[in-house]
């Protein structure tokens, strides 16, 4: 069983940020509906979802940049629901970096400090420290236009952290960067966040980014939260077909519930698949199973959830093969399974071959069709 560490640990202490029934309307259009969420101190939370699902809207409501129409937001025990951004405590980084082009890197990072009437020497020391922190010492005198995208984003991060905010908000900070730079910055940002312990919310539509960086992921869809959980929970136990589909590869098979924790696919051929979810007998359901969870090595016919399937197609994807299979005798039940290169060699798997495969019961998710 996966343990939801942060959530369990979180029950003990009060949340740092509490979002209660937040709704934001643009005219008649409701961008986010009745959002409830808790974020704990020092946590790294990702809002993940397809473009247009309301991630930015929620982030901007938390920042006070576009205040929600309904609902309450509490930060560090303080009700900030209706406060303008200047009266809140956060730093923010945008996809566009939004660096001030006419100010040097130094001046950009110092921008928030100068307004606080901090002594000049202290400002200089703090800026140097921050530039060191983001791996850009000695770049202070340059202008943003003279930096690469990745460097600009580091400066934006340093500027957002300069005033030591309690909450760091990142809106798709890596989307504008090249794939390589993106992967490197992912680690740098995560590392920095761990070191500083600053509570962080990052918006992204990139599942890989969310899975690798977040302590907890908030999966959003059409203005509502579908699931909140650790990356492992989200991946292993998606709470809805949407989440199942959005993250990773997934087989979706139509089935009927047996009412006793079993489901049947196509009425015949397969039966008695053990299932963790119980549905009333006869309910139309969808069965979800990841291709990499399907097993064939050492599966005897007659084993639980085992059945014969024919390889229709085998696609080489570099580190593994993705096989398209059809259940024997039920040609329209088609699913995909990932087999390691070793396995394919050892068992001589090729198109046309019939295998005995098993759907491990603890990996199957079943959702009632709506």
């Amino acid at each position, binding site marked *: 069983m996966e343990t939801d560490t942060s959530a369990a640990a979180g029950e003990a202490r009060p949340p740092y940020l509490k979002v209660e029934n937040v709704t934001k309307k643009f005219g008649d259009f409701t961008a986010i509906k009745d959002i409830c969420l808790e974020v704990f101190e020092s946590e790294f939370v990702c809002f993940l979802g397809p473009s247009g699902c309301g991630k930015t809207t929620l982030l901007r409501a938390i920042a006070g940049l576009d205040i929600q*129409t*309904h609902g309450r937001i509490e930060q560090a025990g303080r009700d900030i629901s209706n406060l303008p951004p*200047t009266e809140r405590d956060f730093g923010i980084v*945008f996809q566009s970096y939004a660096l*001030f*082009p006419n100010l040097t890197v130094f001046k950009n990072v110092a921008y928030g400090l100068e307004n606080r009437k901090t002594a000049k020497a202290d400002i200089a020391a703090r800026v140097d420290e921050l530039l060191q922190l983001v791996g850009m010492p000695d770049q202070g005198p340059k202008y943003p236009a003279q930096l690469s995208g990745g460097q600009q984003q580091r400066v934006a991060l340093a500027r957002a952290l300069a005033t030591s905010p309690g909450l760091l908000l990142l809106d798709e900070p890596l989307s504008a960067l090249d794939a390589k730079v993106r992967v490197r910055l992912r680690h740098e940002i995560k590392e920095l966040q761990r070191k500083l312990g600053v509570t962080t919310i990052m918006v992204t539509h990139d599942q890989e980014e969310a899975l690798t960086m977040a302590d907890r992921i908030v999966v959003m869809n059409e203005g509502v939260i579908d699931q909140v959980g650790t990356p492992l929970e989200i991946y292993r136990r998606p709470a809805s077909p949407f989440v199942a589909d959005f993250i990773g590869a997934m087989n979706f098979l139509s089935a009927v519930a047996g009412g006793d924790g079993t489901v049947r696919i196509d009425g015949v051929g397969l039966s008695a698949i053990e299932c963790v979810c119980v549905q009333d007998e006869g309910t139309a359901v969808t069965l979800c199973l990841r291709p990499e969870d399907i097993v064939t090595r050492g599966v005897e016919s007659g084993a639980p959830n085992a059945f014969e399937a024919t390889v229709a197609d085998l696609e080489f994807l570099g580190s593994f093969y993705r096989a398209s299979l059809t259940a024997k005798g039920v040609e329209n039940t088609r699913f995909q399974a990932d087999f390691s290169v070793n396995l394919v060699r050892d068992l001589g798997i090729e198109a046309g071959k019939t295998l005995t495969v098993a759907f491990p019961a603890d990996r199957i998710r079943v959702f009632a069709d709506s």
Partner: protein
Amino acid sequence: MTDGPQAVVIEAPLVKPKVGRENWVMRAGLAVIGVYLLVAVVFPLYTILSKSFQDSRGLFVGLDNYAEYFATPALFYSINNSLTVSVISMVITVGLAFGYAYGLTRSCIPGKGVFKAIALIPILAPSLLPAISLRYLFGAQGMIKGLLMGETIYGPIGIVIGEVFWTFPHALLIIFTALSLSDARLYEAAEALGASKLRTFFTVTLPGAKYGLISACFVVFTLVITDFGVPKVIGGGYNVLAVDIYKQVVGQRNFQMGAVVGLVLLAPALLAFVADRMIQGKQVALLSARAVPYEPKPDRRFDLAMLAFCGTVAFVIIGILAVAQFAALVKFWPYNLSLVLDSYQFDLMDGGSWGAFWNSLKMAAWTAVIGTAVIFTGAYLVEKSKGFEHGRGLIQLMCMIPLAVPGIVLGLAYIFFFNAVGNPLGFIYHTLIILVLCTITHFYTVSHLTAATALKQMDAEFEAVSSSLKVPFYKTFVRVTVPVCIPAILDISIYLFVNAMTTVSAVIFLYSADTQLASVAVLNMDDAGDTAPAAAMGMMIVYTSATVRLLHFLLTRGIARRTQAWRKR
């Protein structure tokens, strides 16, 4: 909880955002701009509208004035006249400007920079000036009056020639831009498909420049129908609307009829404005980001033809200006051709003085400084503030109105509004302030659009970042927005300055003995028969505008050099 999937019941309390200190500043700023535009644009226009329904004692008489207007042939014939000269000038100007721009963008003629600079000179002159030159060229003792074959220059012919000269640069700028934005790949495709030069012209060049041409047509039409300078000097007995207003107000002191003619003149200007907006709204960006700019290839015969054409146009433009300068220096045309500076003794002339010139400089400087500050700040508030959707929409609409209002109508509206009994702002009447205010308003729209375009190109999140850093937006405005927008700000101020120097129509009703202006002096000296001094003063305006333009050019280049470290473009 819910009756069905559609019914979203929101139980959480409605949030009433707290208005922070910054929001108050922003709202106050918006309110100030809103009130400014109400006072400078809306109220005066409302006053002129209501005046047109009143008799001389201020009693409401319904449509009586309009009935009288249309029952007086001498008045309503002007509508026909105005439309005629406007349409003819429009066709000629746009045709010439298209040929000239075509030569500059599609041929390999030498000296393109010089040609472009020459074509823009007329912008620096008041519209009165070409008309004065035309007198010397084609008048009773004109240098080349034989060319007219017995026709008189005083009438539609003179008006059209003068207007074509004066509106040429406006049309050229628009069409030049449209032709510059062409994609070489389209031409390569046409060539690869074996299309002839002519066919390529009609299937690639013209469609690409379509919106530019339409826009140029509307701009020229509006400029001509609302212009007052050219027909005043060279129109003779050929009445047009803009001059009718002047005659009604200054000649006959019939303010009500002036208001009626003003509204009659407003109609075509407004129509052209609305039509242009609607057509331009249909325009989709033809130019993709990957477009390759067109590079013309040498073609001897074609290049020579274009050189001949552009050379002729440039020669005429310079010629008209040279004649004005010559007229200003000649002792007594055509009898004594020795060159003297007598005409520059403005203080000895009826209706002119060196004081007028200094007043103009002062007025133009104030207009540039105050106008740029007000317009840029206003555009910033409208573009970057949050909430207040309706209020901002209204302000934006008010910013657009001045473009549709002829200067002479605006000037008349200002008399009605600011000279009204009981107006607390009445004290600015007959001062430099009202001249500055009226001039800023007259040229508000173009300046506003320049500012808005520059502001739209800035990152939309500067304000968000600055508020997250607890820096008030006005500090970021000063430290970031203004420095980044300096090129646009300089463009606006030079535009305001040059227009303030050259405008006659907007200020003709508003100057007083103490606030005579150079452009008005040109008109008055010409009226009094001192044509040579009028030409001299007109050329003084040209030289001043040209000098300021040159300074602007050097300043812009210097700033571009100094800031190239952070400016990418």
